């Protein structure tokens, strides 16, 4: 089995064994025990697995480990450990989560969006967020939290 050197949450992971076609999602969850990144569908339809790839939001279920290279990967655990990232702070202030399962993915998508665009328009927000499902329906608060994060 091939091994990979990975750069996750600013930490080097050396010689991670995985089949080349293993989605990054399962490498994170099963091998590295970073379970904050969630499995929701495995086919790119829900956004629960979103992580940052060189600062850009990507679906980790759609990214094979062989394509990752030494790109800078950020998961929810690395956004900040103590919840101090502006997006996490906004999420906390608004009290977004219900079950919380989709929320790491939601926050990573917003973090990715704000990385490339500090003042996104409503249209840009809609298009970034439309791939992240929340079955508990916290969209109303997600919206409020995004506005809060932008304002900060």
């Amino acid at each position, binding site marked *: 089995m091939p091994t990979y050197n990975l750069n996750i949450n600013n930490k080097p992971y050396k010689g991670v064994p995985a*089949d080349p076609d293993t989605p990054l999602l399962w490498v994170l969850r*099963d091998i590295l025990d970073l379970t*904050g990144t969630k499995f929701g569908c495995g086919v790119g339809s829900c956004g629960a697995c979103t992580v940052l790839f060189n600062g850009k939001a990507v679906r980790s279920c759609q990214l094979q480990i062989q394509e990752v290279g030494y790109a800078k990967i950020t998961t929810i655990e690395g956004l900040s450990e103590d919840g101090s990232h502006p997006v996490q702070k906004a999420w*906390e202030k608004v009290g977004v989560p219900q079950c*919380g*399962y989709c929320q790491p993915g939601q926050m990573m998508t917003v973090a990715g969006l704000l990385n490339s665009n500090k003042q996104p328009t409503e249209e840009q927000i809609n298009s970034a*967020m439309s791939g992240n499902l929340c079955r508990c*329906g916290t*969209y109303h608060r997600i*919206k409020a939290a995004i506005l809060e994060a932008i304002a900060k």
Partner: protein
Amino acid sequence: MNTKLQRRQFIKISSAAGGSLILGMLLPQACKTGTKAEVCDPLQPMPYLKIESTGYITIYFARAEMGQGVNTSLPMILAEELDADWSKVKTDLLPFGVTIDRPDKPSSGGYYTTGGSQSVITDWNEMRRVGATAKAMLVSAAAKRWNIPESKCNTANSVVYNTKTKEGFTYAELVCDAIKLPIPKEVKLKETKDFTLIGNAAPKKNLGSIITGKTKYGIDVKVDGMVYAVVERCPVLNGKVKSFDDSACKNIGGYIKAIQFEGSGMPMHIHAGVAVLATNVWSAMKARKVLKVEWDEAGHGNESTEELFKTFELKSKNTPLIEVYKKGDPGKVKASAGNTLESAFAAPFLAHGTMEPINCIGHVQKGKAEFWCGNQWPEFAPPTLATELGIDEKNIKINLAYIGGGFGRRLFFDYILEAAKIAKQYDKPVKVIWDRVDDIRNDAFRPANYHRMKASWDDAGKILSWQHHYVGCSINLMLEGPGAKVVGDMTGGAMSDFWYDIPNVKTGFTHVDFNLSRGWLRAVEININVFPIESFIDELARKLKKDPVQFRLDLLSTMPKRMTEFPFQDPQRIAGVLKLVAEKIGYAQPLKPNHFIGVATHHFSFCPTYVAHAIEIEMFAPKKFRIVKVVAAVDCGIVVNPDGLQNQLQGGLAFALTQALKGEITVKNGRVEQDSFFNYELLRYPEMPPVEVHVVNSTEPCGGIGEVGMPTVAPALCNALAAAGHRPYRLPLKKDGYEWV
């Protein structure tokens, strides 16, 4: 009062050297909800509160936390009476178990059911009494130290104060003394007006853990030595595995073996299947793709929902119904020609689509078994698991985790039973993960339903009769088999306690069988029935050229309370929330051109909660609209956590809009056609309309909140569309070509 409640009594679970005070209840062991509750024995401790001499206060909740916020609302109730410093209180999921003999391992006894929006209602008294009892003991310990009467002490923020000297002892300092005191028989509870915690918005206790990705859901649990499994299931229920061939799987690294298992019937219908075991999920998934299975579909494979709805329609016309509620006799009413209306409403099967796909770890060893998963009703599972595994119920342990979405899906233990069938054939723990296709196709679906509604009136426009014939697929028949006591199980809410004052009413049910597992979905039958009821009452109003709000208010104003039959129901509170949404959305004001408002109101039959919705839409074409704004009003008595209430109502709206707009499961050739969120669509972020939730200020007893935001959404939206001239008669709207922007 029922025996189960009478037998509950307080106990100190631990007064051991550890120096912590654990207060709890004695509960009947293995006490199951429902029938056996009265006879179960012996009593077992169930802790609610732990105060440690280190200063930590932990409040336990014995309900599944799945987003609805019981991990905050229930402990708040206890902390209120305890006068605990809420900011320092930790809350924790009480382990579920039926064998508790170790005070250091607190457990819930056989008691956990989480459904029907009942948690706060059911646990209200006990949580308060535990808090008040602990406080009394701490006060008494402090009074002894000061040598003053207890009446000269007061409490706040985890401190007992001497009212005269203003000196104080923290609860931590008093624990070791309090432990030695007897439990007071009677304690005084606070007056509602003295609440300082209840009624104030509190963030979820695990908010910090969620936003840093630390919350562990069932799917995140790892057990030493475990392997992973994914399952290829028979495409139809009640089929069998004829044969399978795993030779290609063997080329996949990490592949372990394939395990065949049979499906099962009552109470949990699970599909026969072949589990593919591997050392990691991805290998298991890859191996599953190359596994070959031949199925024996046992004569199934022809069913379709298209045919089912044709049967529904036919039966609604020509089958006598099983009566649910009758008042007067609609059959004897003679209305003049033209004074009648008849309509039919329909809604499809629905999948729960919880964001956390179904999963369960099973570990079966000689004579015992252990499981790890999220579940809403763990006491439902052990008897069937025991039979399946041939072991004693006592030796089955279910470890509960936080749940990434329940909505009724995890009231069923089909996935625990499936894990048992697989794990009993392997000597290590097996973690069974359902992918999204499995999750959608093998759900316990909310039953499809069809309603024929009839009404008549006299020449003055007074409604004389109302008939509601529900044709659908019973859940109880699946759970209990042909001998099911109640077949019309989906008719309870809103059909049996129908709340409009009409002299002749008849409601009833006809069951139609269908080879698909069925279960409860958020707001269950109330959600099912309020759609046709609130649509039809609106249609009647418009037919009679009356204002739909006033028309309802008139029919509610003369409706008496029926305390013996429906103690929770107060028609004036149903009217109250309706008036409130009408006021808040500006119902009486002129609307912009092409804007229309629809309303719906209801009593959530299981508890004293009343919710109405008003929805304003803008029409762009006969079937194209935009939701401008949604206003909800809630009357649920005392509100424990206003923040939780808002979140449930906002989220409930999104959940209900999914159903109204696009949620639909269809079956063709016996197979569920949907398999992902691409074709079983949920509401997405850009589709969420602006929403306001208004709460009636009240000191009435608590109602529930988790499900109540659902039932009135679809009818309010459909009534708005009707106001625009196009009444929808079936859900989802997408099916009939409606578009929204």
